């Protein structure tokens, strides 16, 4: 079967989702609406961007490295979305990062992500609004474009080059701009693009909201024990019991003292 190019494939996906040329700022919400389980967590390394895995049992699951800028995270989410749409039967597990970015399947997913996040027509509209369609795109145009679509400066610039709006010499000239100072000068807040610090050793990863909601529902309905609830949440039993009480779920154990353990006896 003939494989669609990434731009056509991305356009089809946008059309199916009824996105028009609108920017997609919350890719995680989009993935979740599409039935993908998403975990956002900071790796130690920011050379790993994300991961995708799929099995019949778990369905599609995506990990997004939050120790990357928010713009990078959005691109990663769109990239993993491509794996879900196109590769999940063939590639059931992949960690995406610098180490494999030149592999064909990865290059396709990066291209898909750019086209999905920044459809050609949408880019044209932004450049038209900026009065830059006649040529002479500068770093300020790239910054406006990046914030319109909430991607990184580099990804926006690369996309402009691949769409033919800037040539290689302009790309080389613009790629090392001081992005955060430009952001500030143009009225954007670079703090909104900041990455999260890596987690401390003992700290469990933040549980995604859908997992927390399911765990609470399962405990409340008697499908799981407090120990299992604590395990799912990455908490000890006392913290798990406190969490349940905080969200208004009564404990089912025979006595509250069973949860508290030794500390309350001291």
């Amino acid at each position, binding site marked *: 079967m003939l494989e669609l190019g990434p731009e056509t494939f991305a356009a089809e996906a946008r059309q199916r989702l009824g996105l028009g040329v609108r920017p997609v700022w919350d890719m995680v919400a989009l993935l979740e609406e599409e039935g993908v389980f998403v975990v956002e967590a900071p790796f130690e390394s920011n050379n*790993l961007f994300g991961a995708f*895995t799929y099995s019949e049992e778990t369905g599609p699951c995506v990990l997004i490295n939050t120790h990357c800028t928010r713009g990078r995270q959005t691109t990663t989410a769109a990239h993993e979305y491509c794996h879900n749409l196109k590769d999940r039967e063939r590639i059931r597990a992949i960690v995406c990062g610098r180490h494999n970015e030149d592999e064909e399947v990865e290059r396709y997913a990066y291209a898909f992500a750019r086209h999905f996040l920044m459809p050609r027509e949408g880019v044209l509209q932004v450049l038209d609004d900026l009065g830059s369609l006649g040529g002479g795109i500068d770093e300020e145009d790239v910054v406006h474009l990046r914030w319109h679509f909430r991607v990184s400066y580099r990804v926006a610039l690369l996309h402009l080059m691949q769409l033919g709006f800037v040539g290689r010499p302009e790309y080389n000239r613009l790629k090392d701009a001081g992005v955060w100072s430009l952001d500030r000068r143009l009225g954007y807040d670079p703090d909104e693009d900041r990455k999260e610090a890596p987690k401390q050793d003992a700290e469990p990863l933040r549980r995604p909201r859908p997992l927390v909601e399911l765990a609470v529902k399962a405990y409340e309905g008697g499908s799981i024990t407090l120990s299992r609830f604590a395990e799912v949440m990455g908490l000890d039993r006392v913290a798990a019991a406190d969490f349940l009480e905080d969200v208004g779920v009564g404990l089912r154990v025979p006595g509250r003292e069973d949860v508290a353990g030794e500390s309350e006896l001291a």
Partner: protein
Amino acid sequence: MVGRRELAARIADARERAGVSQVEVAERLKLPRSAISKMENGEQRIESLVLAAMAGLYAVPVASLLAEGNEDRIADREGLPVEALLRSAGDVATEDRGVLEEFLGMCQDYADLKQALKGAGGGG
């Protein structure tokens, strides 16, 4: 051999499933309740006779509490392509391998919970 923390979690889980309180267990085994609490938190070694008595009380085989193979909850999973994922990460730091394993654990937990709720007629 099953580790202390895993065994602790298993006996706490078995007790809850049996609907018995720590106080009742302590009374039946003639031990302080604090000792039961410590055993369930992995802070105190569990003597084999105590373990056998607990198993009897909770109506579970001792072997099920000691069975190997459940300790590494990630490696045990059938559905997830764990090794493939870790291999594709390349030469990954220990901390990042830990993030990947925790991610896989959450994926499996999510699937298990959906299944449990489906089984209970609670949807998902």
